[in-house]
């Protein structure tokens, strides 16, 4: 582990990728994630890698496909409208079982929306935003330190399952500076071997990277194989943080930046004698069921807070499955919910009222 330094979120993402052994980045400019490609355009050539600015997000994700198929650790990043354009490529990457890391620094939508922080791409990220039955693990860090660690872990998970992995942040996590301890770089000779990669068939039969199965039965078998892999990811890769103080009755559910605003609300509420808990999903897919099982019996209600019109709350309702009331409070379009607004929502829940009304 190195020393504690002050770093901007987007630049920390770039440095974390390099330390994970990523040597290839293909991207296209879009706010508020521009510091990621800018940082990597400087740094990657220094470590023998390649940064390439593509003609579009569509081209960038397909360059990622080619590079991943050639066996490289590779990353792209973008923000919401650009991530929409990458969905075609993500479907092909998932279908052809290619590992890569995709960072989405989410901004308000729909359409051009705005450039302020949002969490309104949750559905797109967690449901497999492109066509076909596929999933991508999604990490939602809440600090720059956690961002660094999860970006590095994302490359491991991607290689382990031969699947794209998404890391989602928002404009705040991308733009703010925080102290961070950068983990040591991963030795390149320790990265997993990829005997399936297309590197030229010297001394072996040809490798083919492909998502086409014209025979319905073969395509079905391929899908069953993918589903088995996704079940394995659900068994092994769930991550969450549970804040469960003695006497908590209301449990917040929040991730990323929103979870930090919620924490300050929890601290203030405690000063007033109101004890609350927090379930913070770190993997948005697979969504953590376990913390809900741990607290649902003693919880009075759940309050999900998001920077969206209510997307993760659907997963919260599935997890709670009608056993307790699930309330929602959200702000949209790039507005960050204030501690006062969330405190007001908490008060309403305590009074048995609907905070969204």
């Amino acid at each position, binding site marked *: 582990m190195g020393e504690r330094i002050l770093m901007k979120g987007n630049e920390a993402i770039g440095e974390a990728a390099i330390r994970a052994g990523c040597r*290839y980045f293909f991207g296209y400019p879009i706010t508020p994630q521009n510091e990621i490609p800018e940082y990597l355009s400087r740094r990657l050539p220094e470590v023998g890698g390649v940064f390439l600015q593509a003609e579009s997000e569509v081209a960038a994700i*397909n360059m990622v496909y080619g*590079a991943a198929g050639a066996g490289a650790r*590779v990353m792209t990043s973008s923000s919401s409208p650009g991530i929409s354009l990458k969905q075609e490529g993500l479907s092909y990457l998932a279908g052809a079982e290619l590992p890569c890391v995709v960072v989405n620094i989410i901004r308000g939508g729909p359409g051009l929306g705005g450039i302020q922080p949002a969490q309104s791409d949750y559905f797109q990220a967690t449901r497999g935003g492109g066509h076909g039955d596929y999933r991508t693990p999604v990490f939602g860090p809440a600090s720059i330190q956690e961002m660094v660690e999860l970006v590095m872990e994302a490359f491991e998970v991607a290689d382990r399952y031969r699947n794209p992995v998404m890391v989602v942040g928002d404009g705040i996590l991308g733009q703010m500076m925080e102290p961070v301890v950068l983990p040591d770089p991963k030795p390149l000779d320790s990265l997993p071997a990829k005997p399936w990669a297309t590197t030229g068939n010297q001394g072996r039969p*040809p490798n083919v990277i492909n998502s086409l199965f014209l025979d319905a039965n073969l395509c079905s078998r391929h899908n069953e194989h993918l589903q088995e892999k996704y079940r394995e990811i659900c068994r092994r890769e769930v991550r969450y943080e549970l804040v469960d103080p003695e006497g908590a009755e209301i449990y917040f559910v929040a991730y990323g930046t929103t979870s930090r605003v919620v924490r300050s609300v929890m601290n203030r509420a405690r000063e007033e004698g109101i004890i609350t808990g927090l379930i913070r999903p770190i993997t948005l897919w697979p969504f953590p069921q376990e913390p809900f099982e741990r607290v649902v019996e003693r919880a009075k209600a759940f309050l999900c807070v998001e920077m969206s019109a209510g997307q993760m709350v659907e997963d919260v309702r599935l997890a709670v499955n009608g056993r307790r009331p699930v309330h929602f409070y959200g702000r949209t379009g790039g507005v960050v919910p204030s501690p006062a607004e969330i405190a007001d929502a908490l008060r309403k829940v305590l009074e048995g009222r609907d905070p969204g009304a």
Partner: protein
Amino acid sequence: MFTRPKSMRKVVMHYCPGCTHGIAHRLVAEAIDELGIQHRTIGVASVGCSVLAYEYFDCDFQQAAHGRAPAVATGIKRVLPDRVVFTYQGDGDLASIGTAEIVHAAMRGERITVIFINNAVYGMTGGQMAPTTLVGQVTTTSPGGRDPRHCGHPIRIAEMLATLEGAAYVARVSLHDPAHVARARRAVLKAFRTQLEDRGFALVEMLSSCPTNWGMSPREALRWVKEKLIPQYPLGEFRVPEEEARP
């Protein structure tokens, strides 16, 4: 002795009788054999009739999304600059949905070789109008013949890409008779040599026949290439590597 190229697998192709894809495949495989690069070549298949190209070539392959083959090839080549990377794309793939990818691969001077099959029609989906369809040509989506007032004139890809400095070798050839196939063979070799010599982007556009979707016999289709396609799409080398261009 006339034998199967080493770089082609011993399988039956799915192409229609009289289609020139088989000839084009063979020319690519012969070039790979002649240059001795089979085991360091990575092909990129596109979407269209040649979607299954990875089943016919005996080398590593990636299958790309519609139009994206040059971007996929870019990703491969940037990771493995000492390997040989080629794409094999039709006119729906390259000249329509994939125009951004092909233009920018050429602009960057990507060290890749592109084999571009122009048969003036969407083949696999059943004969719809392509950007390369001739004025007046009847297709399933231009039942009254292509009307330039409604959907423009045919696009000349080779000439367009030849305006870019990154394009080191750009040629258009035809596969309608043996003499032209021999010329096409030389062009394919040059296009691979351009990459091996690190000169830049290389593309060979091949005028090809599609008897099934043109509603012609194979022989009529080859005559149509000669009499209708070549006047619209002149043959020749539109860009050659600089050293070669010197007198």
